[in-house]
Protein backbone atom coordinates (compact mmCIF):
# COMPACT_ATOMS: atom_id res chain seq x y z
CA UNK A 1 0.00 0.00 0.00
CA UNK A 2 1.57 3.35 -1.00
CA UNK A 3 2.16 5.89 1.72
CA UNK A 4 -0.54 8.53 1.81
CA UNK A 5 0.96 12.01 2.14
CA UNK A 6 -2.09 13.17 4.14
CA UNK A 7 -1.76 10.41 6.74
CA UNK A 8 -1.18 11.75 10.23
CA UNK A 9 2.03 10.19 11.50
CA UNK A 10 4.32 10.61 14.50
CA UNK A 11 8.08 10.44 14.29
CA UNK A 12 10.56 10.21 17.12
CA UNK A 13 13.69 12.28 16.68
CA UNK A 14 16.35 10.91 19.03
CA UNK A 15 19.48 12.95 19.57
CA UNK A 16 22.84 11.27 19.99
CA UNK A 17 24.64 14.50 19.25
CA UNK A 18 27.08 16.48 21.39
CA UNK A 19 26.34 19.72 19.55
CA UNK A 20 22.54 19.63 19.15
CA UNK A 21 20.27 19.79 22.19
CA UNK A 22 16.58 18.86 22.26
CA UNK A 23 15.72 22.56 22.45
CA UNK A 24 17.73 23.25 19.25
CA UNK A 25 15.76 20.55 17.45
CA UNK A 26 12.47 21.88 18.86
CA UNK A 27 13.28 25.46 17.80
CA UNK A 28 14.12 24.25 14.31
CA UNK A 29 10.73 22.54 14.14
CA UNK A 30 8.87 25.57 15.55
CA UNK A 31 10.28 27.79 12.83
CA UNK A 32 9.54 25.30 10.05
CA UNK A 33 5.82 24.57 9.89
CA UNK A 34 2.68 25.58 11.66
CA UNK A 35 0.58 22.47 11.04
CA UNK A 36 2.75 20.30 13.24
CA UNK A 37 2.49 19.26 16.87
CA UNK A 38 5.72 18.64 18.71
CA UNK A 39 6.57 17.34 22.14
CA UNK A 40 9.98 17.85 23.65
CA UNK A 41 11.30 14.90 25.61
CA UNK A 42 14.52 13.98 27.39
CA UNK A 43 15.82 12.07 24.36
CA UNK A 44 14.75 14.51 21.64
CA UNK A 45 11.34 15.35 20.22
CA UNK A 46 8.18 13.76 18.90
CA UNK A 47 6.72 15.31 15.78
CA UNK A 48 3.12 14.75 14.71
CA UNK A 49 1.43 15.95 11.55
CA UNK A 50 0.73 15.01 7.96
CA UNK A 51 3.31 12.66 6.47
CA UNK A 52 4.61 15.22 3.99
CA UNK A 53 5.05 17.94 6.63
CA UNK A 54 6.63 15.63 9.19
CA UNK A 55 9.08 14.20 6.66
CA UNK A 56 10.07 17.69 5.55
CA UNK A 57 10.59 18.98 9.09
CA UNK A 58 12.45 15.87 10.24
CA UNK A 59 14.77 16.19 7.24
CA UNK A 60 15.63 19.74 8.32
CA UNK A 61 16.29 18.67 11.91
CA UNK A 62 18.45 15.73 10.88
CA UNK A 63 20.49 18.11 8.70
CA UNK A 64 21.65 19.84 11.92
CA UNK A 65 23.92 16.86 12.64
CA UNK A 66 22.97 14.11 10.24
CA UNK A 67 25.13 11.28 11.56
CA UNK A 68 24.13 11.80 15.17
CA UNK A 69 20.38 12.36 14.95
CA UNK A 70 18.23 9.27 14.51
CA UNK A 71 14.60 8.96 13.51
CA UNK A 72 11.92 6.32 13.66
CA UNK A 73 8.18 6.30 13.23
CA UNK A 74 6.04 5.88 16.33
CA UNK A 75 2.75 4.00 16.42
CA UNK A 76 0.96 6.04 19.06
CA UNK A 77 0.54 9.82 18.91
CA UNK A 78 2.00 11.85 21.81
CA UNK A 79 -0.27 11.88 24.85
CA UNK A 80 -2.30 8.84 23.77
CA UNK A 81 -4.16 7.48 26.82
CA UNK A 82 -2.92 3.96 26.17
CA UNK A 83 0.71 5.03 26.42
CA UNK A 84 0.86 8.37 28.26
CA UNK A 85 2.13 7.85 31.80
CA UNK A 86 -0.01 10.70 33.10
CA UNK A 87 -3.11 8.57 32.52
CA UNK A 88 -1.47 5.24 33.35
CA UNK A 89 -0.46 6.16 36.88
CA UNK A 90 3.20 6.95 36.24
CA UNK A 91 6.15 4.77 35.32
CA UNK A 92 7.95 4.40 32.06
CA UNK A 93 5.87 3.94 28.94
CA UNK A 94 6.03 0.53 27.24
CA UNK A 95 8.74 0.53 24.61
CA UNK A 96 10.89 3.12 26.34
CA UNK A 97 13.26 0.56 27.86
CA UNK A 98 14.43 -0.67 24.48
CA UNK A 99 14.77 2.84 23.12
CA UNK A 100 16.75 3.87 26.20
CA UNK A 101 19.17 1.00 25.56
CA UNK A 102 19.48 1.92 21.90
CA UNK A 103 19.93 5.61 22.74
CA UNK A 104 22.98 4.55 24.77
CA UNK A 105 24.46 3.02 21.60
CA UNK A 106 23.90 6.07 19.42
CA UNK A 107 27.34 7.65 20.06
CA UNK A 108 28.95 4.41 18.79
CA UNK A 109 26.72 4.32 15.72
CA UNK A 110 27.18 8.04 15.03
CA UNK A 111 30.97 7.71 15.20
CA UNK A 112 30.85 4.74 12.84
CA UNK A 113 28.68 6.68 10.37
CA UNK A 114 31.23 9.55 10.48
CA UNK A 115 34.00 7.07 9.67
CA UNK A 116 31.94 5.48 6.89
CA UNK A 117 31.33 8.89 5.36
CA UNK A 118 35.06 9.67 5.50
CA UNK A 119 35.72 6.38 3.70
CA UNK A 120 37.90 4.94 6.46
CA UNK A 121 38.51 1.21 6.01
CA UNK A 122 36.65 -1.23 8.23
CA UNK A 123 38.55 -2.65 11.19
CA UNK A 124 38.83 -6.33 11.88
CA UNK A 125 37.10 -7.11 15.14
CA UNK A 126 38.19 -9.99 17.28
CA UNK A 127 35.32 -11.30 19.35
CA UNK A 128 35.77 -13.18 22.55
CA UNK A 129 34.89 -16.81 22.01
CA UNK A 130 32.90 -18.77 24.51
CA UNK A 131 34.92 -21.27 26.48
CA UNK A 132 34.50 -24.90 25.46
CA UNK A 133 33.05 -27.26 28.01
CA UNK A 134 36.16 -29.46 27.76
CA UNK A 135 38.39 -26.47 28.62
CA UNK A 136 36.26 -25.62 31.64
CA UNK A 137 36.38 -29.24 32.68
CA UNK A 138 40.19 -29.22 32.45
CA UNK A 139 40.36 -26.09 34.64
CA UNK A 140 38.08 -27.62 37.26
CA UNK A 141 40.05 -30.86 37.30
CA UNK A 142 43.42 -29.07 37.52
CA UNK A 143 42.37 -27.14 40.61
CA UNK A 144 40.82 -30.04 42.49
Amino acid at each position, binding site marked *: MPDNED*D*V*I*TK*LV*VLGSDSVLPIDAALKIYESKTGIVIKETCFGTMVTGSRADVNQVVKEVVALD*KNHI*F*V*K*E*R*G*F*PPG*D*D*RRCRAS*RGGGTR*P*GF*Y*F*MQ*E*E*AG*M*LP*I*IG*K*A*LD*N*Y*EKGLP*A*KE*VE*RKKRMKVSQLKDIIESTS
Partner: protein
Amino acid sequence: MAKVIIYPTNSLILSDLVERFGHKPLAMMEKIKEKVATVGVDSPPLNITAEEPKNGLKYAAVEVPAGVRGRMAIVGPMVDDAEAGIIVSESPMAFGCMGCARTNELTKFLIRDRGIPLLELDFPKDDDEGQEFVYKIADFLKSLPDGEAEA
Protein backbone atom coordinates in the same frame (compact mmCIF):
# COMPACT_ATOMS: atom_id res chain seq x y z
CA MET B 1 13.83 0.94 -2.98
CA ALA B 2 13.60 -2.45 -1.32
CA LYS B 3 11.34 -3.33 1.58
CA VAL B 4 13.64 -4.45 4.36
CA ILE B 5 12.28 -6.23 7.42
CA ILE B 6 14.22 -5.45 10.55
CA TYR B 7 14.61 -7.55 13.67
CA PRO B 8 14.11 -6.34 16.44
CA THR B 9 11.06 -5.04 14.62
CA ASN B 10 10.86 -1.83 16.69
CA SER B 11 14.55 -0.91 16.51
CA LEU B 12 15.35 2.80 16.25
CA ILE B 13 18.88 2.20 14.95
CA LEU B 14 17.89 -0.31 12.27
CA SER B 15 14.85 1.65 11.13
CA ASP B 16 16.99 4.78 10.79
CA LEU B 17 19.87 3.06 8.98
CA VAL B 18 17.56 1.35 6.46
CA GLU B 19 15.86 4.65 5.65
CA ARG B 20 19.20 6.50 5.64
CA PHE B 21 20.52 4.21 2.90
CA GLY B 22 17.46 4.62 0.71
CA HIS B 23 15.18 1.70 1.53
CA LYS B 24 11.87 1.20 3.27
CA PRO B 25 12.05 -0.37 6.73
CA LEU B 26 9.23 -2.77 7.57
CA ALA B 27 8.85 -2.03 11.25
CA MET B 28 6.32 -2.76 13.98
CA MET B 29 5.63 0.93 14.63
CA GLU B 30 3.95 1.55 11.29
CA LYS B 31 1.71 -1.47 11.70
CA ILE B 32 0.74 -0.41 15.21
CA LYS B 33 -0.01 3.06 13.85
CA GLU B 34 -2.44 1.53 11.37
CA LYS B 35 -4.21 -0.21 14.26
CA VAL B 36 -4.25 2.86 16.46
CA ALA B 37 -5.48 5.15 13.71
CA THR B 38 -8.19 2.80 12.43
CA VAL B 39 -11.63 3.80 13.61
CA GLY B 40 -13.29 0.97 15.47
CA VAL B 41 -10.08 -0.59 16.74
CA ASP B 42 -9.91 0.96 20.15
CA SER B 43 -9.75 -1.31 23.12
CA PRO B 44 -7.24 0.19 25.55
CA PRO B 45 -4.75 -0.95 26.63
CA LEU B 46 -4.72 -3.51 23.81
CA ASN B 47 -5.08 -2.85 20.11
CA ILE B 48 -5.56 -6.42 19.05
CA THR B 49 -9.04 -7.39 17.94
CA ALA B 50 -10.52 -10.87 18.11
CA GLU B 51 -9.66 -11.29 14.42
CA GLU B 52 -5.91 -11.10 14.97
CA PRO B 53 -5.38 -14.51 16.60
CA LYS B 54 -7.41 -16.03 13.73
CA ASN B 55 -5.19 -14.33 11.15
CA GLY B 56 -2.18 -15.50 13.12
CA LEU B 57 -3.21 -19.11 12.45
CA LYS B 58 -1.48 -18.79 9.10
CA TYR B 59 1.84 -18.51 10.92
CA ALA B 60 1.39 -20.43 14.17
CA ALA B 61 -0.62 -23.52 15.08
CA VAL B 62 -3.83 -23.35 17.09
CA GLU B 63 -2.25 -24.73 20.26
CA VAL B 64 0.26 -21.85 20.27
CA PRO B 65 -0.70 -19.17 22.83
CA ALA B 66 -3.05 -16.48 21.54
CA GLY B 67 -0.43 -13.83 22.34
CA VAL B 68 1.98 -15.36 19.83
CA ARG B 69 -0.73 -15.65 17.19
CA GLY B 70 -1.84 -12.09 17.87
CA ARG B 71 1.68 -10.81 17.42
CA MET B 72 2.22 -12.97 14.32
CA ALA B 73 -0.93 -11.46 12.80
CA ILE B 74 1.05 -8.22 12.68
CA VAL B 75 4.59 -9.52 12.12
CA GLY B 76 3.66 -12.32 9.66
CA PRO B 77 2.40 -10.07 6.83
CA MET B 78 5.53 -7.93 7.26
CA VAL B 79 7.71 -11.02 6.71
CA ASP B 80 5.62 -11.98 3.66
CA ASP B 81 6.03 -8.48 2.25
CA ALA B 82 9.81 -8.25 2.79
CA GLU B 83 12.34 -8.23 -0.04
CA ALA B 84 15.36 -8.33 2.27
CA GLY B 85 16.03 -8.67 5.97
CA ILE B 86 18.38 -7.63 8.75
CA ILE B 87 18.41 -9.69 11.94
CA VAL B 88 20.35 -8.33 14.89
CA SER B 89 20.83 -10.73 17.79
CA GLU B 90 22.17 -10.14 21.29
CA SER B 91 19.50 -7.51 21.75
CA PRO B 92 20.11 -5.75 25.08
CA MET B 93 16.40 -5.58 25.80
CA ALA B 94 13.23 -6.58 24.11
CA PHE B 95 10.34 -5.12 26.02
CA GLY B 96 6.91 -3.99 24.89
CA CYS B 97 5.79 -5.44 21.58
CA MET B 98 9.15 -7.28 21.34
CA GLY B 99 8.70 -8.96 24.70
CA CYS B 100 7.61 -12.43 23.60
CA ALA B 101 10.53 -14.84 23.17
CA ARG B 102 8.54 -17.45 21.22
CA THR B 103 7.24 -14.84 18.78
CA ASN B 104 10.81 -13.63 18.33
CA GLU B 105 12.03 -17.16 17.56
CA LEU B 106 9.23 -17.69 15.06
CA THR B 107 9.82 -14.30 13.42
CA LYS B 108 13.51 -15.02 12.93
CA PHE B 109 12.72 -18.50 11.57
CA LEU B 110 10.18 -17.15 9.06
CA ILE B 111 12.58 -14.44 7.85
CA ARG B 112 15.36 -17.02 7.34
CA ASP B 113 12.90 -19.42 5.68
CA ARG B 114 11.85 -16.84 3.06
CA GLY B 115 15.20 -17.13 1.29
CA ILE B 116 15.48 -13.36 0.78
CA PRO B 117 18.85 -11.53 1.02
CA LEU B 118 19.60 -11.53 4.72
CA LEU B 119 22.19 -9.98 7.00
CA GLU B 120 22.67 -11.39 10.49
CA LEU B 121 24.82 -9.72 13.13
CA ASP B 122 24.96 -8.76 16.80
CA PHE B 123 24.35 -5.46 18.54
CA PRO B 124 27.68 -3.63 19.06
CA LYS B 125 29.25 -3.23 22.49
CA ASP B 126 32.18 -0.94 21.69
CA ASP B 127 33.49 1.43 19.00
CA ASP B 128 35.16 -1.24 16.87
CA GLU B 129 32.11 -3.48 16.89
CA GLY B 130 29.98 -0.41 16.14
CA GLN B 131 32.07 0.36 13.08
CA GLU B 132 31.80 -3.22 11.85
CA PHE B 133 28.02 -3.14 12.52
CA VAL B 134 27.43 0.04 10.52
CA TYR B 135 29.79 -0.90 7.67
CA LYS B 136 28.16 -4.31 7.21
CA ILE B 137 24.66 -2.86 7.23
CA ALA B 138 25.64 -0.03 4.85
CA ASP B 139 27.31 -2.41 2.38
CA PHE B 140 24.38 -4.82 2.57
CA LEU B 141 21.82 -2.08 1.95
CA LYS B 142 23.82 -0.65 -0.93
CA SER B 143 23.98 -4.10 -2.52
CA LEU B 144 20.19 -4.29 -2.67
CA PRO B 145 18.38 -3.10 -5.84
CA ASP B 146 17.99 0.70 -5.93
CA GLY B 147 20.14 1.16 -2.85
CA GLU B 148 21.13 4.79 -2.59
CA ALA B 149 24.23 6.35 -1.16
CA GLU B 150 23.79 8.03 2.19
CA ALA B 151 21.79 11.24 1.68
